[in-house]
């Protein structure tokens, strides 16, 4: 059993699968941190369940990456587990939005809302992928993310249009998260190749629909869309915030210190 960091042969297909898998795993892990800490039992279960859906989606995507990655030296192949547990910060390809620390319940909900409003139409569009396996993952994931979007939308409205305190916290959460939303719609040469083959869609086509969904919910929540157009980026190429390292240290501690441990 290897315990040191793996190398990954990032062909465009592998890179694409890892990016989507990393988004789901890291955000799913962040939600798992809420387990036992949410304001009420119902919300505790809701956040843990959304996290579970995301980690399930991550597994399907890592399995796909493993299938598509050319064999390493000696015929050794990466697996779901080696991708998750034996890559370092710089090898993670997730959106910065997904790794941001939880903060209060309002920020957790707002982060999930901004992401779900993007990923749900994204997977819906990906159901038409020319790649049968990606289309199958998209079909499965979209049903779950539709539910996440509804759940978080209701909370954004309830808290935004709630007390002055809950309103201010939601507005602060939105201001804090806003500059991390642009990265969702970025594309690069590797993805452009896959787009040309009809395997994936161009995420930027989701932008206007996303903006409309967000605006509609924020209006009902009496929240104001931030004006700043400047957007953070870097996660897709492995340039992360300081927060991801701490997250991985916790998540990877066991497999790295107890090589070969099994359940």
């Amino acid at each position, binding site marked *: 059993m290897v315990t040191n960091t793996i190398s990954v042969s990032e062909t465009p297909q592998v890179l694409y699968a890892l990016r989507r898998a990393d988004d789901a795993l890291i955000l*799913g892990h962040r939600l798992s941190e809420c387990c036992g800490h949410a304001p009420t039992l119902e919300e505790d*279960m809701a956040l843990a369940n959304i996290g579970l859906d995301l980690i*399930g989606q991550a597994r*399907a995507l890592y399995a796909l990456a493993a299938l598509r990655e050319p064999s390493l030296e000696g015929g050794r192949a990466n697996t779901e587990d080696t991708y998750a547990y034996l890559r370092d910060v710089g090898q993670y390809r997730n959106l910065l939005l997904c790794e941001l620390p939880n903060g209060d319940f309002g920020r957790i909900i707002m982060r999930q809302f901004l992401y779900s409003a993007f990923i749900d139409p994204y997977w819906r569009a990906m159901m038409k992928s020319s790649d049968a396996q990606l289309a199958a993952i998209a079909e499965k*994931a979209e*049903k779950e993310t539709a539910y996440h979007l*509804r759940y978080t939308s209701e909370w954004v409205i309830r808290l935004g249009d709630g007390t002055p305190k809950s309103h201010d916290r939601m507005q602060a959460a939105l201001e804090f998260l806003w500059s991390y939303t642009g990265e969702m719609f970025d594309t690069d040469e590797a993805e452009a190749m896959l787009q040309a083959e009809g395997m994936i869609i161009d995420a930027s086509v989701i932008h206007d629909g996303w903006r409309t969904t967000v605006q509609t919910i924020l209006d009902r929540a009496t929240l104001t869309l931030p004006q700043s157009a400047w957007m953070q980026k870097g996660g897709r190429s492995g340039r992360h915030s300081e927060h991801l390292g701490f997250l991985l240290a916790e998540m990877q501690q066991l497999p790295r210190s107890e090589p070969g441990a099994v359940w």
Partner: protein
Amino acid sequence: MVTPQTDALLRTRVLHALDDVTDPEIPVLTIADLGILRDVRVHNGVVDVTITPTYSGCPAMNMITLDIETALARAGIENFHVNTTLSPAWTTAWLSEAGRQKLLAYGIAPPQEGSGRGSLFGTVEVACPQCGSTDTSRLAEFGSTSCKALWRCNTCREPFDYFRCH
């Protein structure tokens, strides 16, 4: 010698053995009732069982796989594979009518047809599995497992699980 007839007989034995495999979280439902048993094929004496998860992260999948393997081994069937497929994705429409009745008798409101999609805040009418009243309200989107939501009957005041539709 393996013939199409022996394959057909073996398939019947497999289906019979799988009748004993239930969902670990809803033990009144067999995997066939629930619609997660997608396909059973037998070719030249080799059995291929295909299942599909209800939710991507369903923690019961590993256990269901193990239960299938145990049931087949117990029935004396040795040469088999259990595969998982994601497509076509499971929806609550895959739940059999027998399964819906069993759920109701067990105290879980079965999913309402076609309530999964629709508008962002689509409303759905759910009948109380205890008293049948449709004067019910949702307490939480997520219930005791990832496939259920928590509801309450406004008539008899009993809380109940609703099998989430999607």
